[in-house]
């Protein structure tokens, strides 16, 4: 009987990611597409959404921000996690050359996208942003594919000083046709505006607090869309529409701080 219950995955290998998190490589595959996410259950701890970084073997990259992610990144090899999914709509894989812009743990879904693009032999340009050097995650993953991500840090400790979007704006080369972005919402807003201004096709992966993860409870809504089901990937135009809808009804939302998601 096909159901949506959890499957068990033992941890095969844990890779520390600077001081801010870890990449977890599990023993087992879970067919997924870049941009999709899974719900990870740690019995007794809770259940949270994470983007798929690779599907064979299943790989997740987790930033430590609270109790659940602390427990998850402390797992030992052989210990297990419970996973249901994948859920959500993936990034559209369009023909053309692409720029991937990631902030913080947003790097997770873009790493998977980069892998798929490389497999199609259309190497993307990758821009990664973080607060400071020690906060970068998954740079090794890109390098393993032969990609050299452009780095940007708020404090200038590594690469360009400034945000990933500022790094993008400052590119000497012309923009490419396709922009894919994932990261803190403030960054995505800036990216969406830039992309629209440049007339580039652009998709963003949004985040909202998720309960069911399967498009039932309505908890993850953004405007009239459910991020878990209709997203998490939206076109920049659609994202801008959704943010406007949200802001109309909750004027305070526009300047919501989401720093905790941007290690």
């Amino acid at each position: 009987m096909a159901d949506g219950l959890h499957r068990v995955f033992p941890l095969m290998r844990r890779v520390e990611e600077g001081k801010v998190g870890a990449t977890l490589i599990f023993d087992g595959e879970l067919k997924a597409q870049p941009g999709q996410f899974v719900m990870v259950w740690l019995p007794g701890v809770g259940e949270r959404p994470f983007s798929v970084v690779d599907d064979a073997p299943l790989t997740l990259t987790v930033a430590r921000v609270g109790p659940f992610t602390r427990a998850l990144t402390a797992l030992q090899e052989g210990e297990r996690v419970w996973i249901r999914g994948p859920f959500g709509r993936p990034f559209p894989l369009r023909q053309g050359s692409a720029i991937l812009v990631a902030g913080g743990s947003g790097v997770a879904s873009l790493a998977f996208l980069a892998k798929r693009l490389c497999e199609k032999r259309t190497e993307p340009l990758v821009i990664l942003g973080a607060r400071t050097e020690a906060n970068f995650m998954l740079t090794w993953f890109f390098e393993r594919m032969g990609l050299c991500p452009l780095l940007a840090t708020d404090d200038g400790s590594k690469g360009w000083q400034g945000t990933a979007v500022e790094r993008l704006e400052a590119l000497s080369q012309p923009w490419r046709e396709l922009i894919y972005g994932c990261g803190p919402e403030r960054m995505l807003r800036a990216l969406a505006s830039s992309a629209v201004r440049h007339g580039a096709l652009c998709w963003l992966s949004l985040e909202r607090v998720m309960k069911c993860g399967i498009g039932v409870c309505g908890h993850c809504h953004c405007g009239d869309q459910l991020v878990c089901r209709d997203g998490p990937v939206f076109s920049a135009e659609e994202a801008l529409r959704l943010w406007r809808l949200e802001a109309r009804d909750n004027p305070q939302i526009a300047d919501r701080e989401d720093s905790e998601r941007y290690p």
Partner: protein
Amino acid sequence: MALDVSVDLCGISLRNPLVLASGIWGSCAETLVRVGRAGAGAVTAKSCSLEPRQGHPNPTVLDWGHGLINAIGLSNPGAWEEKRILQRAAVGLKEMGVPLIASVFAETIVSFQRTVEIIAQAEPDLIELNISCPNVEDEFGRPFALDPIMAAKVTAAVREVYKGILSVKLSPNVPDIVQVARAVEKAGADLLTAVNTLGPGMVIDVHAGRPVLSNKVGGISGAALRPIAVRCVYEITQAVSIPVIGMGGVLTGEDAMQMLMAGATAVGIGSALYYYGEAAFMRILGELEELMVQEGYSSIKEFRGCAHG
């Protein structure tokens, strides 16, 4: 000949009998309007209480293979915020002629009254009382819906403070749902909604050796609930003379027709949105219409309740 799928619910005209059930998508104004745009005959907002409620931690909803099991824990932003949500939703829905149903729950009778008074200010077309929540004044904390006397008391108390159209939502988890239905009708309900989720049930993960839901148990909805819900609607409509919104496991036009033949006036759609999103409405309606053509029906009243024979 043209098909007439409209129905009349206590004087409210629905363009079709399919009503969004409470608790699915209905926690924000924009998604309610979206469901109206997608073809629903009416939409029900998520149940709200006087004070905001956080709900249970994850996992809260699961597809266990034959429907859903949920223990959301009735999270909601409280009556005052809900009033704003309803007002915003009403604007978009009114344009399309889609009635809006508000849903209210509380843990005491007085709090039911207070909450309804606030929600009534948003002027929804109908208020539904979700009485499947524990009555904190009962010595065992049993839900109001499990006791005909308590169910009637809540209904009568709300009836006092609310003159609009009032529905009471019944639970299938009683040995005799007819008793509750009759009591609630007598206490002044204008219509009934039947049924809420079944159980509760429990799903144990054998690798974890524990229940999956953080709340351990949760209500069963979707396919597994269907035959129980159809029986409940059949029994209730045989016993009362007020209309019933029948729901529980309606995923296809055939399921909707079962509900209508069992005697329902309108049909609630909840878990179907898990499988089909908001397209559930046009899909189920299309299948229902096709069946009507096949069987030579031109309007819903021609077969409503026909299973009573």
